[in-house]
């Protein structure tokens, strides 16, 4: 079906404020009397706090408050599992944990005062490595994690936050069927999301005791609940005001400093702003979990996978508080099966406590780690079997009616078509010069679920306002929602406006995340618009002028004291039986003298639903892909005994505009998604297969296999040196 507005490449009409500097992000919010909060952080990974002396800091002119744990209620916070204190109370568990907080009118004065807080620590033994942490006798990060609210009941070791398992068939029986068994272990790095806006928030307590919040948080309604819990206040006392978010990528869903800002506001009677320095982001944000992943796969002579066992150890750091899902693990662990039919499968994913920076969700949580391991493993097996890596994949790809490790059965499976499209567009079979290699990798990404409220209102000037509680994280979702409403009501895009609902307006909303917004927000807006359309039709009938304009209809209703308005609450509880496949080809050149890897060309193919806004859709692909390249090649939070050593964006290197390769995108549109107009999701489709595509290309170019990310020049150089030595001996 042809659409009028849906599918049009409409630019970012919603961005005048952003390009002109008028957009007010959380850090830009100013209020009369506003003061700044700054946090003192632990220099030790594990220590008992013997004493905190704040007297000297309190005496600094301009300092209005200094708080340590003893000044705060003894509550623990989190997103699902509540294991983190507001400020370290009796002990610190990672370098960067907050131990005190200062408020002053001048942020520099507050920061200077931090240096005058004296904390006496008594060192305790610490553990930084996930494997070491689950050995018997390892230092315990928490004495009894099972007692925390929201904690999974059972754990094999007190340093395990959670275990997530996926099971299909009988894995032991499957291995007995196998002719060959392959086992490889892969490692991925600790990596920050790289959003350019550090966490920021403002908390003000109104005269009547209402707590007003402005925060870089993508789930305002959940934030209200979490704040209510953390501050021990009824939900009605809290209002979260929506602000644009300066990059999320999974990282902006926690409380972060907001409870501290509240307590500083409470004791000073002033609105308080807390903005993390980027150094604090890098030492104490909530980055992507590093992993050690072992895959063991049984294959028949015919090249069919009959069994796989996956064990993933995620180093989750000192707290589970940043993980938002009930299993307190990483759903991406399910990608241990990749895009393949594996009849007998067991995946076991452990999130492990260590005395390190607590990790959280990052774009496609767990998937870039798991897909790097899985797709590298596929190429290694194919090589060993003497099979072409494409042929090996094709013998095992998911097909119609297959089941995912989650138990979902799949329809409209287009894995093979997506792979073929990527191969063709990449010139897979064309000759390549010496030192150049090509690698392929695949993944798939489910379409997110959640719940959203939408309200549409016909204005007397004939335009329509969409009221929504979803903040703008930058994806262009608000524009997509406007397109949907405009399409349904036969309006132009300019005739639909967005009004952002504070958390007073709706009962609930699952917010932004998990590639769900086009689906849930889109369906809520779609159904609300359909209802409004029906009301308008009825009103027009009452007026007796079937062709009456929206303005005339709205004005007629207004004369009766009525507003034409419709609301819809959309709740997608279960995943649809469709997914979105991705196939990517990296073409790289390897400098044999230095090991430097240059991506010469990149091809990305996606099995997508109806594309509502092609510019925004492509923007998601490109942004995710370049994040994937950073993860593959340059981004790593270095650590030394729990201390993050890359404490600026000068050391933690995000790709620049000069680092991106020529890109070819192929879209295979198949309008079968659960979203409005049969849309699917795209936000997390392009990131996860990039690193294995690059790793496979490096292996193709120079014969060395890099098992741990990022693929630095140094790793390739020394691997080349080893392989030269082996060949000459």
């Amino acid at each position, binding site marked *: 079906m042809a659409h009028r507005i849906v599918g049009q490449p409409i630019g970012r009409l919603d*961005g005048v404020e952003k390009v002109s500097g008028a957009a007010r992000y959380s850090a830009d919010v100013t209020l009369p009397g506003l003061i700044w909060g700054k946090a003192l952080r632990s220099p030790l990974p594990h220590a008992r706090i013997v004493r905190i002396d704040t007297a000297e800091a309190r005496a600094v002119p301009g300092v209005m408050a200094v708080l340590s744990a003893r000044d705060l209620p003894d509550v623990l916070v989190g997103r699902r599992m509540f294991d983190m204190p507001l400020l370290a109370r009796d002990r610190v568990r990672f370098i960067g944990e907050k131990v005190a907080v200062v408020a002053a009118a001048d942020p520099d004065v507050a920061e200077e005062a931090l240096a005058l807080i004296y904390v006496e620590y008594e060192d305790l033994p610490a553990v930084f490595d996930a494997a070491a942490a689950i050995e018997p006798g390892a230092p315990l990060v928490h004495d009894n994690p099972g007692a925390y609210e929201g904690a999974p009941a059972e754990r094999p070791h007190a340093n395990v936050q959670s275990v997530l398992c996926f099971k299909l068939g009988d894995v032991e029986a499957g291995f007995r069927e196998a002719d060959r068994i392959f086992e490889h272990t892969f490692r991925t790095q600790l990596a920050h999301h790289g959003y350019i806006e550090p966490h920021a928030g403002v908390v003000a307590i109104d005269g009547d005791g209402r707590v007003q919040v402005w925060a870089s948080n993508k789930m305002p309604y959940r934030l209200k609940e979490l704040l209510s819990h953390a501050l021990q206040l009824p939900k009605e006392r809290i209002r979260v005001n929506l602000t644009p978010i300066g990059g999320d990528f999974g990282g902006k869903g926690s409380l972060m400093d907001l409870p501290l800002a509240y307590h500083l506001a409470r004791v000073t009677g002033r609105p308080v702003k807390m903005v993390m320095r980027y150094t604090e982001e890098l030492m104490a944000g909530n980055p992507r979990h590093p992993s050690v992943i072992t895959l063991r796969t049984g294959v028949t002579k015919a090249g069919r996978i009959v069994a796989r066992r996956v064990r993933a150890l995620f180093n989750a750091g000192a707290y589970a508080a940043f993980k938002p899902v009930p299993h307190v693990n990483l759903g991406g662990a399910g990608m241990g099966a990749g895009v393949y039919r594996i009849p007998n499968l067991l995946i076991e994913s452990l999130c492990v406590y260590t005395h390190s920076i607590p990790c959280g969700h990052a774009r496609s949580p767990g998937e870039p780690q798991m897909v790097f391991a899985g797709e590298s493993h596929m190429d290694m097996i194919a090589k060993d079997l003497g099979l072409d890596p494409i042929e090996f994949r094709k013998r095992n790809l998911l097909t119609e009616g297959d089941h995912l490790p989650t138990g979902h059965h799949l329809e409209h499976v287009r894995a093979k078509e997506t792979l073929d499209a990527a191969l063709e567009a990449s010139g897979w079979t064309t000759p390549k010069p010496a030192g150049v290699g090509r690698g392929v990798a695949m993944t798939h990404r489910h379409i997110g679920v959640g719940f959203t409220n939408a309200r549409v209102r016909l204005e007397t000037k004939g335009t329509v306002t969409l009221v929504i509680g979803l903040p703008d994280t930058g994806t262009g979702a608000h524009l997509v929602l406007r397109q949907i409403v405009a399409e349904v009501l036969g309006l132009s895009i300019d005739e639909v406006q967005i009004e952002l609902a504070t958390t007073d307006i709706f009962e609930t909303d699952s917010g932004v995340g998990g590639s769900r917004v086009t689906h849930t927000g889109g369906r809520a807006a779609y159904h609300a618009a359909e209802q409004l359309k029906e009301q308008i039709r009825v009103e027009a009938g009452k007026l007796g002028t079937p062709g009456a304009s929206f303005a005339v209809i709205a004005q007629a209703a207004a004369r009766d004291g009525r507003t034409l308005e419709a609301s819809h609450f959309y709740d997608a509880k279960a995943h649809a039986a469709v997914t979105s496949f991705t196939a990517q080809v990296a073409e790289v050149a390897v400098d044999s003298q230095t090991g430097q890897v240059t991506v010469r060309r990149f091809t990305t193919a996606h099995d997508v639903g109806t594309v509502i806004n092609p510019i925004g859709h492509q*923007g998601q692909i490109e942004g995710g892909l370049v994040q994937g390249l950073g993860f593959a090649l340059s981004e790593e939070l270095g650590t030394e005994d729990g201390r993050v050593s890359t404490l600026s964006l000068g050391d933690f290197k995000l790709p620049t505009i000069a680092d991106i390769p020529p890109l070819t995108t192929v879209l295979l549109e198949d309008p079968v998604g659960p979203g409005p107009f049969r849309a699917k999701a795209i936000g997390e489709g392009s990131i996860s297969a990039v690193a294995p595509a690059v790793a496979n290309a490096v292996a193709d170019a120079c014969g060395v296999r890099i098992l741990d990310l990022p693929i630095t020049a140094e790793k390739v150089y020394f691997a080349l040196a080893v392989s030269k030595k082996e060949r000459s001996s």
Partner: protein
Amino acid sequence: MTRAIRLTVNGTAHDVEVPTYRTLLDCLRCDLGLTGSKEGCGVGVCGACTVLLDGKMISSCIALAVFADGHEVTTVEGLAEDERLHPVQQAFMDAGGFQCGICTPGQVVAAKALLDANPSPSDTEIREWMLGNLCRCTGYYKIIESIRAAAAQPSRP
């Protein structure tokens, strides 16, 4: 220790008394209420705080406010003329040159400075000039498209 300074921002002269340690960025944001320029990395790497000082783009997060005493500063708020967006700003909207927008004030100020110095830059020149403006959302492809489109505008001021 404070110091009285006079700086001209987007054509308007301001007299402000600032602590000597105040960065130019904090002065613009806190003292003058111009919050368009952002603090990202805080060490001159990311470019979210890019402003022009006497026409030359600099990192305002590692410049002191006192450096601007007697000088002219151009921020993102000064690019539009009479409510009309600068062609660079318009192009970033039309071509999807931003997503979350936090780096965008720096990107458009840098792109404007580029086109002022070089009205029809090659892709290589765009990359070399813009490599100090990090963007985590777009993957940069649409930033390059935006700058190309702005450069192609015949009536660019």
